[in-house]
């Protein structure tokens, strides 16, 4: 017994010593950087690095890593060496907030790329704002983050927050223009699931579609818990629309499409990024062919400007894919690096003034990025608003039309 207790305390001592040693090495490393005559500036990443969404989160981290490596190679910030500091938010607001506090306590942090989830961003923004750290998100699509809760009287909540992706608020109008102009359909019906996302999407779509001269012949609702949509479909069918616009997500959208077509209403269904998921096609069955969904951004493979990014990413030898938001994360990191080029020019250390100057510089940045031209408007949104219409074909979502929204 006593021997075991002795062993245990011995093991604890060893572990403790190792931990201390590890800290020591780390400190020495940064000292080593300084010894080269280079000061260290860090760019943080807050993204879901574990859990369901880790594929996206790791793609974001790696893409930022790539941007930093390239900047260091090109000596983009003379006298400064950029380092990456990635923190996991587990797609959870509370964890994200702690990650933000950790980064805010690090004096070398000059900017943060993240988050992926809009809900996490709401908790991260105030922490980084207090520390005057610029935040550029590659994946938040919630309109309220830049415009405030009242979209008709937009008011920017945080001056340090920017994003490179597009928001949900223009998905509806984008879809409406595609239906009216490209498909030539003038008579549609709408169904929403009474949730914030679905109601908002349908409202934005309807507004634009009517402004274009289209007619909305039936406006219906369903419960997210419902499984039988027959009665709503019968009501929609009576109005004889040529397309059904659905505001909601794929667990309801897929079965809705399938039931609609089985009940003889053979018109395409269109929705937002909530239905653009392989599961939609599985639930929708064979008859989901020809349905549409809009999503923010462009399929990276389709963009000429993205080829260099994709090549460099593959050469860098990351074990995970850059995923859906990699290109936006790469642009977000470069926006911060561009800002640092201005703010760090005469600086010797990273003070609050330098951080504020960085925010200003990012606000004024303008460059050709991977996902298109990157520049920010007075709310912190990217001025280039690229969206894509996807169509169900051959059992998968294929890009039908990519365009920038003006």
């Amino acid at each position, binding site marked *: 017994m006593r021997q075991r207790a002795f062993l245990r305390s011995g093991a604890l001592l060893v572990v403790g010593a190792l931990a201390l040693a590890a800290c020591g090495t780390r400190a020495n490393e940064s000292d080593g950087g300084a010894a080269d005559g280079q000061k260290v500036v860090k760019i943080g990443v807050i993204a879901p690095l574990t859990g369901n969404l880790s594929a996206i989160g790791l793609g974001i981290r790696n893409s930022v890593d790539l941007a930093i490596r390239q900047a260091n190679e090109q000596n983009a910030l003379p006298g400064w060496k950029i380092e990456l500091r990635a923190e996991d938010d587990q797609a959870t607001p509370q964890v994200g907030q702690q990650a933000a506090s950790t980064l805010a306590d690090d004096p070398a942090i000059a900017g943060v790329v993240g988050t992926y989830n809009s809900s996490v961003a709401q908790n991260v923004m105030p922490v980084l704002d207090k520390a005057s750290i610029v935040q550029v998100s590659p994946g938040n699509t919630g309109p309220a983050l830049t415009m405030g809760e009242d979209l008709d009287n937009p008011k920017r909540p945080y001056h340090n927050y920017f994003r490179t992706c597009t928001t949900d608020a223009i998905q509806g109008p984008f879809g409406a223009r595609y239906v009216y102009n490209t498909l030539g359909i003038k008579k549609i019906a709408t169904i929403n699931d009474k949730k914030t996302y679905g109601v908002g999407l349908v409202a934005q779509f309807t507004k634009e579609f009517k402004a274009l001269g289209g007619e909305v012949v039936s406006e219906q*609702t369903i419960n997210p818990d419902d*499984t*039988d949509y027959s*009665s*709503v479909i*019968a*009501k929609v069918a*009576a109005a004889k629309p040529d397309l059904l616009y659905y505001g909601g997500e794929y667990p309801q959208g*897929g079965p809705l499409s399938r039931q609609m077509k089985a009940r003889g209403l053979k018109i395409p269904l269109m929705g937002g990024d909530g239905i653009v998921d392989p599961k939609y096609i599985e639930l929708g069955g064979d008859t989901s062919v020809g349905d549409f969904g809009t999503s923010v951004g462009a399929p990276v493979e389709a963009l000429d400007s993205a080829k260099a990014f994709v090549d460099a990413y593959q050469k860098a030898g990351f074990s995970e894919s850059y995923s859906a938001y990699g290109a936006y994360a790469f642009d977000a990191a470069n926006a911060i690096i561009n800002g640092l080029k201005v703010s760090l020019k005469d600086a010797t250390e990273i003070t609050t003034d330098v951080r504020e100057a960085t925010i200003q510089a990012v606000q004024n940045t303008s460059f050709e990025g991977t996902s298109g031209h990157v520049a920010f408007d007075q709310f912190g949104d990217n001025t280039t608003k690229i969206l894509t219409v996807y169509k169900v074909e051959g059992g998968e979502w294929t890009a039908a039309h990519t365009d920038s929204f003006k």
Partner: protein
Amino acid sequence: MLTQFVQQLANGVVLGAMYALIALGYTMVYGIIQLINFAHGEIFMIGAFGAFTVYRYVLPDGTSLWVALPLMLLGGVLAAVLVAVAMERFAYRPLRNAPRLAPLITAIGVSIALQEAVRLYYPDARSKLAFPQLISGSPIPIGFGASVDRASVVVVLVSVLCMVALTLFVRRSRMGRAMQATAQDPDTARLMGIDIDRVIVVSFVLGAALAAVAGMAQGLYLGQIDFRMGFIAGLKAFTAAVLGGIGNIQGAVVGGFALGLVEVMAVQYIPGQFGGGAWKDVWAFALLILVLVFRPQGLLGERVADRA
């Protein structure tokens, strides 16, 4: 106008047939042991998963419809009956003479346990599963410009067949008469030589078989199943049973169809802010409250109210 009415009538009948099938299980068990078996909705869910399992793991690709459907039905019924018998034996029988709240709470526990078991251990059951589209083809016109899809015809035919068979069984067979006798007075029935335990098991088996038929019917008709499907369906079927008069077999059928029709007609005819699909449940439950206020015994009356 008429087209719309007939179309919604058809939708309501299909929905009502499924509610009625599940409601029969509630009402039979309540009639005999005065237990509201809240886990009955999960039996319905397990029936659907049983049928899906046969399709996914047993049948080879390209099996003919006429072979696949009976085998799937068999698989669904088997799964549902096994779970129901085990539930009766291990969860309810030990509590038969306990205060009435104890089996009620147990039923809620069993319901949660079954849902979570399927969610955790059935492959891919964490999200909705697509049920195979076995019955396809263009909708069949039924006159007045309305039409119904082929799966719904099968659903209604099978449901009506089940209801007729159950009625005949309860009225004509020896076991059916024993069930009636037990419902009226279990102590006297036992003195007359009826094996009460067996009667109770049979009522659970019959209820489970009907629920499994409903589960498979919903899979075919709506094209999706998930581990939570039993919750809402069970709640609706319970409403249907109470609406018709719980304990009364004809009442469950009438209540099921009434509920189905009210839901679709509410979608069709209630305009404005309180109309539409999102409000149909509100109107269905409003009807339940009205019926309970003015006719607490249900539309057809509670047949075995003497033992409450």
